[in-house]
């Protein structure tokens, strides 16, 4: 469920418009602020991305361990490789941004 406060969101925001979006999770914890300009919209903070990255790393580790445990069972290894290909897409979309300097 998303609760909108402040100026409200417009599909084509005007310059330096500011709005605060409050997310309500299952635990009812507000988790983010959003600043919207004509140039960009920031949808998530670094801390939340870090959490996602941690989970992505855990999936990769678990799948690699699964491959080791399988002892070469094709049905495990090849399906695990397919999962790893998808994990790579998660890394491209989330993890790769995290270690930028700026």
């Amino acid at each position, binding site marked *: *469920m*998303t609760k*909108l406060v402040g100026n409200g*969101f417009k*599909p*084509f*925001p005007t310059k330096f418009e500011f709005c605060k*979006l409050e*997310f*309500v*999770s*299952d635990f009812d914890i507000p*988790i*983010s602020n*959003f600043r*919207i300009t*004509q*140039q*960009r*919209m*920031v*949808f*998530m903070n670094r801390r939340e*991305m870090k959490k996602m990255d941690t989970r992505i790393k855990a999936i990769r580790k678990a799948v690699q361990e699964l491959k080791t445990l399988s002892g070469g069972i094709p049905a495990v290894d090849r399906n695990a*490789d*397919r999962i*790893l*290909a*998808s994990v*790579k*897409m998660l890394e*491209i*979309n*989330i993890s*790769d*941004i995290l*270690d*930028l*300097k*700026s």
Partner: protein
Amino acid sequence: MKTLAKGADAYWNPIMETLPLERLRDLQVKKFKKILEWAYERSKFHRSLYQGAGLEPGDIKSYEDVVRVPKVEKAMMRDIQRKDPFPYGDALCVPLEEVTEFRQTSGTTGTPVYQPDTWQDWEWWAEAWAYLLYAQGYRRTDRVFLPFGYNIFVAFWAGHYAAEKVGCEVVPGGVLDTEARILKIQELRATAMMATPTYVLGMADTARKKLGIDPARDLTIRKITCAGEPGASIPSTKQRMEEAWGAKVYDHIGATEIGAWGFECTAQPGGLHVNEALFLIQLEDLETGKIIEEAGRKGKIVITALDRIAQPCIQFDSKDVAEWSKDPCPCGRTFRVIKGGVVGRSDDITKIKGVLVAPSAIEEVVRSIKGLSNEFEVLVTKKGDLDDIALKIEILPDEEKNREMILTQLKDQLRLKTNLGYNIEVHPYNSLPRYEVKAKRFKDLRKHGL
């Protein structure tokens, strides 16, 4: 469970697609260094190319340094594949047994180039397409019809897998003929489809003439993604398609050796976004070779696919010509926009009677004239020492009464838009060649001494 921010659902990846440009640059440079190192360590071709230029991966430290990396052209890829390992040659960066996909280029510009991909690469192809389909409004509620002969060319294969990834229901219209495809679209009430502009127009024609179906009125297709030809970025061709189908038509650009690197979004800003999350794209001045960052100057597009590993695409000279748009897109994406899409290919833009002409400019004029069919052909020859340009057209049967007016309008517009006079030949309706995939309407026979 968290709910996505309102507004964020316009993007496949709201984080990446709204990243400030300076951070995108940092990301691109970081990944460029990585893929360069990957290729240098694993491919004999890349290593000798870079060593020949006195370059090592460590030499690339900034965005500006990227231009120092030698470019790869399609002709080089053709030479590479004559070497081992068969059939790809020494640009291959993974063991052969890791290759799971074979595709080849269409061969419109010469011998087809083979393209190996791993599972990860194929996942990446679908990811690039997912960015574009999502930007064009494809959602889980869509039933997507692919009137595409699934074959050796990559064409809409990746579109198929990306639509699945987005969560659409995908209907493969593979071996069906055009009439059967139209009837299946009608029967299943498909909401979206992907095809070349030539085929989109051809299908509409067939639907009306052979089946008595008006696609705009009788079918439920509301968005069409085009590829393979520049038509969807040519305003008059786009308008013809949108009117025929009663649908929004979006352009996309990609290549077998590169990936799907550019797309139009639902805001239709009069150009295509370049996908700066997955590609590093630079425009190079056609004469000086210097990088163009400002709007309004045409340049050759040089591309690096930042995450493609089996046969990396690094500093690929696409031969496509484009210019940056000066305005940001109202969709909020920070990915830059190339104005009007790709305006031509550097090897297609040719001098006729001393005037530089892009075939797309002729198409723009022909398709803007009401009363002409969708088909045309341009033939450039030599008559003595002089260039001659013949334009073959068809007049629609019920517009014959307006023949003189149509021809006058056509001549005037061609003169105005291309600065050239043409020998116009009117051919009987339905006599010019019809194409299903990539049309070959521009023929410069001067190269063959004609």
